[in-house]
């Protein structure tokens, strides 16, 4: 029986400790870990980011931002402009169709979910005041918060919840999270405040699923989403797809004291160097999706600060089981040995990432299995494996694209290390345009890019289950499939952990994907923005939830 009460939604913690960066302080964290602090908690001490870069100028070792931020309490008022990395006429205020960071941010600005992620990615009550399951995850009851109104004045009712969730099951809605919603068999209103979710199979992670930006609550019957009529902290004042949107403070917001800002303008700037220049010239106050090259520039600037978050985003080498030569186990193993992971992290990511081990669960997340031996760069072993696979000295095409972050750089690095093992890789760079529908998972050797998912189970279900539509390599393993489904309904934490460890081992040993590194999310922001030490490791802009948590120091 899981039960959450309603006052835990306030996630602003005392963040003084989050700013520790000096060597002594690192030592303290180290000792704390020795004392039994979990790795996860230590990450939190470090601001979950691991890295929190400060601007230069000021007392050495103690940046002015730190000194100010430590004491300053949030201020109300102010207007900021936020630039996301992509924006097009496809932008939509229909949460079901959200496809990039700017859509997700707007969904959380204008709407609320039943639940909401906290900095540990635990689902906390939001529009639902509380939630519980009576039978280990098949039936869930959500109690709605009272007195919540939409921007147009309509009160929140169970009908809104039913409409908001069930519409995702209509194929024509074009929902991006259909695969997550399919397990919800039905929803019914028990009374004026309570709704019951019935699942086709137990899933103890339902509250996490309901926290994603696509599943926020819209008003019953909404067809035209251009007004952004939700219950969120900001009202939509202007929205023109591909140009900009303006949200102004919702004076009737149900959460007392929030938001701090008067208004947020959101724009998209696709060119990375323009985005950085706009931040440094003061035209925008927050930017996302930076590469390591530009991160250094922000670090060295006077008015910009850098935030790096390890959230488990990865770009992976996809080796198809149904094509040659990637169907040969020795070849796949050889490719995994050809990743010089240290070099990829250093050269392509400029250090902003974590070494990965060919399985998708990132270090620091709840089910990460640290007993798995790290696969090392080993060209000799790769050479003998290639011989074993009968492809020594062969030429193999490798497809890369700007669509998959860093894949071109990784391809070039892989090409170099493959040459050392006598394998010639021909890089075939294809346009980002149409990459996901025409190239991804279609070539024997190509790249994919997977954004963080809220839970390990969602990730594994969507990308590794034999029957998954996006089973990237076409890997099929009955034992693994059983584990994924069983883990959803397993109430015992220790057993569940062991299941996830087994799954990670299976993917690491047999899977058809190579994950060399996890990419850090890099963001830049104006040093006058407060509240940025809160981190939700699910994506940029505080897991897209920044809008009501930041303030302007003026």
């Amino acid at each position, binding site marked *: 029986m899981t039960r959450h009460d309603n006052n835990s939604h306030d996630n602003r913690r005392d963040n003084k400790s989050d700013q520790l960066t000096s060597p002594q302080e690192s030592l303290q964290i180290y000792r704390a870990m020795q004392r039994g602090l979990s790795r996860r908690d230590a990450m939190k001490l470090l601001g979950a980011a691991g890295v929190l870069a400060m601007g230069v100028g000021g007392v050495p070792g103690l940046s002015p931002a730190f000194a100010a931020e430590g004491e300053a309490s949030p201020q109300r008022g102010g207007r900021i402009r936020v630039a996301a990395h992509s924006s097009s006429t496809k932008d939509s205020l229909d949460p079901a169709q959200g496809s990039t960071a700017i859509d997700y941010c707007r969904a959380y600005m204008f709407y609320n979910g039943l639940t909401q992620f906290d900095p540990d990615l635990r689902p906390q009550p939001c529009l639902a005041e509380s939630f519980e399951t009576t039978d280990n995850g098949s039936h869930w009851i959500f109690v709605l918060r009272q007195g919540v109104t939409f921007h147009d004045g309509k009160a929140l009712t169970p009908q809104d919840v039913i409409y908001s969730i069930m519409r995702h099951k209509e194929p024509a809605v074009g929902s991006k999270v259909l695969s997550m919603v399919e397990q919800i068999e039905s929803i019914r209103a028990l009374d004026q405040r309570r709704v019951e979710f019935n699942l086709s199979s137990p899933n103890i992670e339902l509250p996490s699923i309901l926290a994603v930006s696509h599943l926020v609550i819209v008003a019953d019957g909404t067809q035209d989403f251009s007004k952004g009529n939700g219950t969120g902290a900001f009202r939509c004042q202007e929205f023109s797809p591909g140009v900009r949107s303006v949200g102004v403070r919702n004076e009737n917001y149900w959460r007392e004291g929030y938001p701090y800002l008067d208004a947020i303008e959101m724009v998209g700037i696709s060119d*990375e*160097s323009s985005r950085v220049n706009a931040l440094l010239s003061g035209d925008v106050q927050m930017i996302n999706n930076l*590469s390591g*090259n*530009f991160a250094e*520039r922000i670090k060295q600037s006077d008015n910009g600060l850098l935030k790096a978050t390890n959230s488990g985003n990865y770009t992976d080498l996809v080796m198809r089981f149904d094509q040659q030569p990637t169907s040969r186990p020795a070849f796949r193993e050889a490719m995994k040995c050809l990743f010089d992971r240290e*070099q990829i992290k*250093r*050269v*392509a990511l*400029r250090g902003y990432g974590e070494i990965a081990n060919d399985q998708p669960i990132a270090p620091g997340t709840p089910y990460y299995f640290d007993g798995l031996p790290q696969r090392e760069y080993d060209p000799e072993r790769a050479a003998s494996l290639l011989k074993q696979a009968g492809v020594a000295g062969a030429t193999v095409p490798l497809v*890369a*694209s*700007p669509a998959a972050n860093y894949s*071109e*750089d990784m*391809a*070039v*690095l892989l*090409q*170099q290390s493959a040459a050392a093992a006598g394998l010639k890789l*021909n*890089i*075939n*760079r*294809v*346009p980002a*345009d*149409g990459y996901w529908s*025409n190239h991804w998972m279609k070539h024997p050797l190509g790249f994919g890019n997977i954004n963080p998912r809220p839970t390990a189970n969602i990730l594994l279900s969507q990308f590794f289950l034999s029957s998954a539509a996006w089973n990237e390599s076409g890997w099929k393993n009955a034992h693994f499939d059983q584990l994924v489904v069983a883990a959803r309904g397993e109430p015992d934490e220790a057993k569940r952990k062991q299941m996830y460890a087994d799954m990670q081992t299976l993917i690491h040993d047999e899977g058809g994907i190579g994950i060399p590194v996890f990419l850090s999310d890099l963001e830049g922001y104006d040093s006058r923005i407060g509240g940025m030490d809160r981190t939700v490791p699910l994506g940029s802009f505080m897991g897209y939830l920044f809008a009501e948590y930041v303030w302007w120091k003026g």
Partner: protein
Amino acid sequence: MNSLKTMPHPKANTPQRLRHGSHLPVGAPRRRNRRRLQLTRWIGLGVFGFWILVALFGPLLAPHPMGAFVSDQMFGGISAAYPLGTDYMGRDMLSRILTGARYTVGLALVAACLSSLIGAGFGMLSVLLPKWLEESVRRVFDTLISIPSKMMALVMVSAFGASIPLLITATVLSYAPGAFRIAHSLATNLATMEYVQVAHTRGEGRLYIAAREIFPNMIQSVLTDMGMRFVFIVLLLSGMSFLGLGVQPPAADLGSLVRENIGGLSQGAIAVIAPALAIGTLTIGANLLIDSLSTSRATQKE
């Protein structure tokens, strides 16, 4: 004045003499200019020749393979080991430019010549064709010019895959219509001149009129236009590589070298300045050479 004098003109004496009559001694300034033109020509020839040599032999001279990661320093400055610094991944910039120049020079040269040849050829001939045929040719080129080159590039790469001949085709399709436009308007003007009319009445064939009467009189503009097209094509190539149509990594043309290192601009990295300078000298050299070529044709006649 035109260059007819340099071309023997057996049949048509009258118009030639007519223009000879009007060919009058020109004052001192032009003679003084000739020496300068010579200088420009030598500079143009020198610079352009240099790049031709780099294109031919550059890869042999490169100290490192263009894809090798030789340094741990990204955007490294000028040093003895790396005379043009290192790029955003720590590769030797000198080697990359020496290898990349081949793509830029070769592709742009071929594409610019083809565009001008096709564009100017049709532009010139269409004037002499029957009205309806001329109109059809114009419609075709007008249609071509109205198709966004990005769309053209995307559809070609998806239909035929990426290859160098395809890249040239896409480039020519984008730039020939412009050349046609200019050449056509020049030729239309010239076709109304007396000497062309006279040639018509003399019963000369269309090809003869085009080659002997019209072409020599529009060569200056056509060449200038080709010089500009060369510049545009050099710059276009980097955009095409970006779409996956162009040169495949780890190789890169000069424009792509600028683009991929643009992050180093704020710190004044040599990795972005060097290829930009390379593009600058290459295109300016080519245009100076073209200028002096066309002008020297004019001065030869004296």
